[in-house]
């Protein structure tokens, strides 16, 4: 070996060593927290399952599976891990549910859980490429009950303001009959009377029943406190509280030991939990996915749709209010990427997706999009596609149809869901709308899809938007 070739070998080994050290060092690791945000039954659990599964299978998948996710060619390896301090998201169980002989959609989420997707990839950027050809990115996906999201606006309101808003809602046409037992009980309550735990528990239970009936009988989603509206969640009677606008906080607050003071105390304790949740999930946020089930609300009718609009607007205002006043002014404080997804897009034909996206834009509002994120994308998405689009002849005209298994049935049918509006309909337009949006059972995929991508609508665009 000549001196020059020895020098060349030594230089090469040194560079390889530096590269290996760099790969193992925190300098080559990036971490992104992706908050999957959405109200109850918006599809968060299925989204997280499909998202993680797509990342696991994307590298080996053909182009036809993810045509709009070209970043997947950089993926070398994917690992699913726990997030320290957060209960593990039951990914394998959820996937098994979808791939079983008789597939079912996941049950509603009842608690906080998370999944870390560690991706080893080749997209290292220009500067890093001088030292290493690989980088590692951790994506933290957090799942939580959608009802908890509705509590965020409460952090920006005093007890009195919140009570006034809830009482106004309870007296509205769509809720008054459900709220009557609670309203009658609370009108008879003297906030200055000595604290009476059984009486507070009785009225609190009546209020909770009213919230549960709003959810279950009228499909209304704007119910607060959100945790009280979870039917499976046990709530300590000593923690129950309810709106009472005659109770004031601050200098004119109720005296200690009174009913009013007890309500204020319980309200404050509840907000502590909400603040903790907000910090855990939405603190240090880089990217956000907001899932909105517009179609179910449309199908429920005017009241349910207006309620959804109110909920989304309240949540978007709360996000804005909760940021530090100084940070609100700084562009760097905004979320890097915000993906807004109108979910269950497979419940309408493909020609209606543009209307769905326009409706989503209308309900969320451009100011929220501009204020919240540097980049925002609106998409019609189905995390797991349960239907097939086809064109059939009806009276000589080619008409788009969906083929799938409607919910609660066990046979495949062809259905025409109709035309959905592209803007929020006015009150008098609701009677003229021509659609019938059905729910569908999961597609019978089977265990073969454990290593193959699941059928989806635009999940690849969400992946590309968030990762590339």
């Amino acid at each position, binding site marked *: 070996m000549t001196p020059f070739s020895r020098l060349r070998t030594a230089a090469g080994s040194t560079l390889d060593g530096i590269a290996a050290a760099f790969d193992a060092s925190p300098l080559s690791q990036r971490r992104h927290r992706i908050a999957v945000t959405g109200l109850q039954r918006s599809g968060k659990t299925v989204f997280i399952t499909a998202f993680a599964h797509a990342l696991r299978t994307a590298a080996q998948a053909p182009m*036809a599976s993810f*045509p*709009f996710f070209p970043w997947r060619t950089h993926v070398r390896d994917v690992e699913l891990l726990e997030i320290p301090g957060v209960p593990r998201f039951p990914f394998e169980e959820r996937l098994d549910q979808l791939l079983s002989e008789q597939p079912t959609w996941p049950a509603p989420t009842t608690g906080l859980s998370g999944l870390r997707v560690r991706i080893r990839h080749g997209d290292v950027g220009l500067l890093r490429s001088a030292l290493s050809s690989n980088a590692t990115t951790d994506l933290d996906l957090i799942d939580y009950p959608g009802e908890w999201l509705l509590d965020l606006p409460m952090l920006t309101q005093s007890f009195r303001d919140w009570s006034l808003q809830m009482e106004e809602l309870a007296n509205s046409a769509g809720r008054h009959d459900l709220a009557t037992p609670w309203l009658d009980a609370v009108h008879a309550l003297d906030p200055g009377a000595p604290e009476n735990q059984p009486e507070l528990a009785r009225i609190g239970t009546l209020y909770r029943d009213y919230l549960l009936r709003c959810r279950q009988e009228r499909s209304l989603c704007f119910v607060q406190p959100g945790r009280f509206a979870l039917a499976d969640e046990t709530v300590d009677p000593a923690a129950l509280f309810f709106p009472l606008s005659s109770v004031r906080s601050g200098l004119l607050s109720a005296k200690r030991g009174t009913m009013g003071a007890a309500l204020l105390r319980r309200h404050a304790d509840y907000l502590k939990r909400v603040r903790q949740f907000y910090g855990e999930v939405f603190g240090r946020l880089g990217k956000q996915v907001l899932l909105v089930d517009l179609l179910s609300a449309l199908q429920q009718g005017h009241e349910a749709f207006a309620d959804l609009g109110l909920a989304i607007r309240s949540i978007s205002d709360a996000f804005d209010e909760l940021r530090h006043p100084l940070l609100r002014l700084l562009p760097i404080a905004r979320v890097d990427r915000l993906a807004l997804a109108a979910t269950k897009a497979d419940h309408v034909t*493909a020609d209606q997706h*543009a209307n769905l996206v326009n409706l989503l834009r209308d309900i969320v509002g451009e100011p929220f999009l501009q204020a919240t994120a540097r980049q925002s994308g609106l998409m019609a998405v189905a995390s797991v596609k349960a239907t097939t689009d086809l064109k059939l002849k009806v009276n000589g005209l080619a008409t788009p149809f969906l083929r799938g298994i409607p919910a609660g049935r066990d046979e495949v049918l*062809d259905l*025409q869901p109709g035309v959905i509006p592209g803007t929020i309909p006015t009150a008098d337009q609701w009677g003229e709308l021509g659609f*019938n949006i059905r729910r569908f059972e999961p597609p019978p995929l089977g265990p073969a899809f454990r290593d193959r991508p699941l059928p989806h*609508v635009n999940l690849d665009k969400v992946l590309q938007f968030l990762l590339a």
Partner: protein
Amino acid sequence: MSMTPQAETPRRLVDMEFRPGDLPPADAPSLDEALPEVTTRPPAIRWPAKLALGSAGLLLLLFVVDGAVSLLRSAIEQGSLLDLAQFAVLVALVGSTLWLLAGQARAYARLKSAERARELAEHLARLGGVGSGGRLVGVLDALYAGNPEVRGKLGAVSAALQPQHTDADVIDLLNREIFVPMDRRADDRIQRAALRASLGVAACPHPALDALVVLGISVALVKDLMQIYGLRHSARAVWRIISHVLFSASSTAVMSTVVEFAMKAAQDRLAAAVVGTAGEALVVARRTFALGMLAKEEIRPLPAPR
């Protein structure tokens, strides 16, 4: 047919249910359907330009024929072997040039014009709709009928398309999977041609040779671009490209002449030569690059991604 019981016959199609097979499938849309809005284009070449081109060609032909006849007459009448040899070489030159041109014309005719595909793509991008992307793929499939590699990629793109993909999605996917790799090769070819043209002009001692170098490199560049994209430009575009080439070649000759004069007039001839030649080379490189981008724009079947 419909499963809904007679007693509850719904009024709306959205309330009805059908078993697979109850309704006949709709036919796929025809590729030859006329586009609803087709903008009329102005005539490709105006008659004065046609007259100029035709006259120049005829004049060149008359010169060649006159020269050949004179040489032959001289060879026969005066028995000049030199004139006979010159006649033979002229015949060989004209014959081989015509053979080459015929070959190029045949190759050119085999290539299809990208104009129809580009028109459809621009139309679909303007409408921003969904469902017509398959027609664009069909048109491209017909254009590249003799190119199995591109047809294979078109097949892969077609298999990847889903009903929810908009026409803009289809154009993006076609660009990414098929035409952006071609763009990379085309850009590389254009840059090399610009470099060759600048070096060629810098090395040439005479302005007329400069013009020939630029003409030759430009024509070769356009030909290579047609080969890369597997398509040719439209008849309308030919005039734009030819006029650009002729302008480039003739202005190079003029520029070279001006530089020669400047060199002779300057006190420091060496410095004047270096600066003049370098400047000329830069301008030629830029013009060749611009020609390449123009030709690429005309040949590329889809609008380039923004």
